[in-house]
């Protein structure tokens, strides 16, 4: 379960405090419910994911994680370009306290990512699709209750998307996903509920279809 209690967020700019990105966002994500975030570009979707993942702190309000939550995957975050995929994977295993079974985890990640010899090449030589594969494999190597994905499936090819979806369905009995995507079919495939972000406010919908409908209506206005 994740409790988001009245969070406000604004970033510092070169001209003092910026505009409010999120203004009084509250909701509760129950256990085992996968949620899709929809909203225009700049509506604060990635910001909200970062706050839920604990990567960033809200200006006001607080987030409570009553379960194991992954880091937000997406856009190469958390990978260091000069190091190889294997070295980055080792680092992530170690900070999650898996020094003992690091070989098993590495084998799992390498197997899931299917990037071949590139696993031992520096990340900066990777394509965006290869990065996505590595990131998704990395997070699936750990036993999280909630996985946070920021468009991580967007750059993968069809084969990878299928693989990710299958891997995810296998986890569905004890894990869930919070994801941002502009692909309607992706959202419908992975998520049951939805959050529509608009003007710094969040609207919760028990059904992802209703969230998508609300988003479409706001666009046509």
């Amino acid at each position, binding site marked *: 379960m994740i409790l988001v209690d009245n969070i406000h967020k604004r970033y510092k700019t070169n001209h003092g405090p910026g505009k409010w990105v999120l203004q009084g966002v509250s909701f509760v994500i129950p256990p085992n419910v996968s949620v899709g975030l929809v909203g225009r570009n700049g509506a604060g979707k990635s910001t909200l994911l970062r706050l839920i993942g604990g990567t960033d702190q809200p200006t006001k309000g607080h987030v409570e994680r009553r379960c194991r939550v992954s880091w937000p995957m997406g856009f190469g975050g958390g990978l260091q370009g000069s190091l190889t995929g294997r070295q980055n994977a080792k*680092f992530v295993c170690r900070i999650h306290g898996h*020094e003992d079974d690091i070989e098993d985890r590495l084998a799992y990640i390498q197997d899931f990512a299917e990037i071949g010899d590139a696993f031992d090449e520096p990340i900066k030589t990777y394509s965006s699709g290869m990065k996505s594969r590595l990131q998704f494999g990395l997070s699936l190597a750990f036993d999280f209750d909630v996985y946070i994905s920021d468009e991580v499936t967007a750059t993968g090819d069809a084969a990878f998307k299928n693989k990710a979806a299958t891997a995810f369905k296998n986890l569905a009995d004890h894990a869930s996903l919070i994801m941002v995507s502009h692909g309607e079919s992706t959202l419908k495939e992975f998520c049951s509920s939805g959050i529509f972000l608009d003007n710094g406010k969040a609207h919760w919908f028990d059904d992802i279809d209703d969230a998508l409908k609300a988003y479409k209506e706001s666009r046509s206005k």
Partner: protein
Amino acid sequence: MAEAMIKYDYAHPRTSLAITLSVWNALFLREAVSRLSVGRIAWLWLLAEPIIQIGIMLFIFTVIRMRIVGGISTEAWLIIGMITFLMFKRPSGQVQNALSANRALFAYRQVKPIDTLLVRAWLEGFITVLIAIIFGIGGTFFGVELIPHDPLMVVTVFFGMWLMGLGYGLVTSVAVELIPKMGTFLGFFGAFLHISSGVVLPVSTVPEPYRGWLLLNPLLHGTEAARVGISPYYHAIPGMDIGYLYKCAIVAIFFGLALHRRFETKLITL
């Protein structure tokens, strides 16, 4: 299907200390790899940089025909001063830039900004001690007297310089993130510290009252004390006090830690 994965033990989550220790371990190994193995001769540059610096200064001193400084040979005087100063300079520089270099890692909430700084200081101290040992052995091989007459004093000085580097880096790492153009200013300030620390300029030749002013620089106390620790014949400047170096270092470390506590969220967000 549940048997596919090792179940997480909810009754016994990792303690904060266990998380921090595993983060330090992971960061240390990661930093060591990127410091020493990225690029084919990364490790060679670690040695080449001080060798070139010392070589240039030695050339200048030879041209102006200065054979002895404060009772010891110019070579010994330069090498001891330069290496002792490195014990401050390397950790402080690495710590100062730790935040921008590790920004990608703050995606993992287990990694706090302060972790990257402490680990870098530790690794850099370790590397610099290795460099110092190599210089000590290499210099002795070429007939420069670098075997410490008072090893404990040398160790005390090196540790004090390292602490000072950590403290300085802790403070400046926050400053460069929060104040625009601070990096440029600190570049100039670093050059000033280098000159006023008695590394290339024999401070004993500076007349009073200016010499007294230079004694405000804690690093000067370190470089002079290291020379005394190596050679009993060295005439250190009057007023030298290792305790002053340690006092400054401890004040800087606590001030730096307080800054990090105060600006923790800002440093991640930027």
